[in-house]
């Protein structure tokens, strides 16, 4: 149960919170907390994955057409960027475990950089689909579901156009939710990098770095599922 380690008696670690009996208990609790949070996130995205599964089985052709319209090269490049950012994140956690403060800061900044590259690419991807929806005129190329959706670029008409709108609802919904998780992750990474720079972490205590690492890896894994499901349907 409560391991009464040497650290808990007498001079206890500055990071030990008063309601925990030891740093070990605190670390285990924080870690379990992050795993439970990730479990919740799986179900959160899960609802969208369930809807995707249902609609794709109903409308395979519209989904295929919509998927063809996305640039798999851009998606693939972004995938590599994100996997790279997971690598730098893992290196950051390892550096914290061995107490190399400067490397921790460096790797976290690299993770932020790569994450920002991913988000910028997404910005441009979204842009080319959303920009045509504004202004007056034909809205050719508008791929935001709704009244201005233009299915001609997908060579679809009639009910298939409606089905393609569902594909793009899922595209924007799922990648948008994913991007939101990254947008939230970046400032958190900045805070952790700052704390690392201030010397708050050590081999005995670097739990925040581990937990943020877990979160970032999870966000990466979600993308690894999203990419083939959205970009790689059917043959190219």
């Amino acid at each position, binding site marked *: 149960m409560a391991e009464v380690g040497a650290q808990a008696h007498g001079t206890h670690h500055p990071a030990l919170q008063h309601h925990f009996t030891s740093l070990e208990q605190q670390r285990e609790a924080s870690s379990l907390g992050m795993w439970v949070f990730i479990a919740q996130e799986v179900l959160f995205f899960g609802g969208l994955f369930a809807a995707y599964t249902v609609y794709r089985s109903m409308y395979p052709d519209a989904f295929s057409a919509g998927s063809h319209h996305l640039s798999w090269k851009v998606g693939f490049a972004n995938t590599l960027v994100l996997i790279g950012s997971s690598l730098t994140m893992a290196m950051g956690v390892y550096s914290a475990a061995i107490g190399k403060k400067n490397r921790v800061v460096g790797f976290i900044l690299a993770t932020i950089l790569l994450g920002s590259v991913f988000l910028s690419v997404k910005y441009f991807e979204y842009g080319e689909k959303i920009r045509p929806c504004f202004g007056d005129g034909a809205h050719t190329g508008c791929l935001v579901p709704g009244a201005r959706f233009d299915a001609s670029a997908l060579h679809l008409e009639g009910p*298939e156009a409606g089905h393609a709108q569902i594909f793009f609802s899922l595209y924007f919904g799922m990648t948008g939710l994913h991007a939101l998780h990254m947008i939230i992750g970046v400032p958190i990474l900045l805070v952790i990098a700052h704390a690392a720079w201030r010397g708050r972490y050590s081999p005995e205590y670097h739990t925040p770095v581990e937990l943020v690492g877990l979160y970032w890896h999870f966000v990466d894994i979600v993308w690894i599922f999203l990419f083939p499901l959205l970009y790689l349907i059917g043959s190219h």
Partner: protein
Amino acid sequence: MTPAFPLAPEQASSVAGEVDALFLFILAVTGLFAIGIWIALFYFAIRYRRRSEDDRPAEIHGSLVLELAWTIIPFLLMSAMFVWGAKVYFHLNRPPDDAMTVSVVGKRWMWKLQHPTGQREINELHVPVGRAVKLVITSEDTIHSFFVPAFRIKKDAVPGRYNMAWFRATKTGRYHLFCAEYCGTEHSKMIGRIVVMEPEEYQVWLAGGPAPESPVLAGEKLFTELNCITCHRPDSAGRGPVLNGIFGRPVALASGERVVADEAYVRESILSPAAKVVAGYQPVMPTYLGQASEEQLIALIAYIESLQVPSEGAPADAPVPSRAKGARSR
């Protein structure tokens, strides 16, 4: 159940008696357990009430035998309830072959019904007693639910699909029809009645009023107006499959699947032709989404259902009772 304090609606359909019997069975079992536990609670509470602060209650941890008993026995009783309920549900979802089809379209806030002979009704349905009636139900807007308490039937009217319910009325009379799925402001006004009549009276009722257009004839007209006839010819020279005799039979699709050509399939093929293309044909049929209302779709389906393969002596498109088992559910 005195008339002054009824506990159940009249039993006016062939299935109502069985539903009530099933209900009473569940009531008897659950009632027995409930009363048993209440008695135990009362008895223990009184018999073992605290008489002094020095009372020393027994140290009982539990009893595996009791735990198994009160797990297994309820489980067995519930299995019986489940089996009987499933049987009734099956029955409620399988209309007899001789059922006459009435189409039902729910719309905020009214029920639009049409007889196979073409008569239309709003919020009322006249039927002959003793005849099986199959309802093909859909909605034009939100989800509604077609509920006749006296028949013990209910089915949601879902936009974009057909649902099926059926009944055989066993007593003449007038019975409540309710919408049972909240659909907005006048949800509680979306009510009406089922009027069950003696068969002769029903014939009189059918004959009264302006001569209705049978949905089959209406459908035949639409079939020409909408140019379906150009591709779906009774000979095999058209670009679309021959529709004579197709209704109610299995169809092989280009994907390799087989589906039954029921109301739902025909409707889908009119609105979304690329969804289930027949094997051996190209996906060239245009969609009629937006060009045919729900009622026109019902007419087209009635017409297609009436197209039978010509047998010796019978005209090619004489209406013949459908052999379809009912609208397929997803």
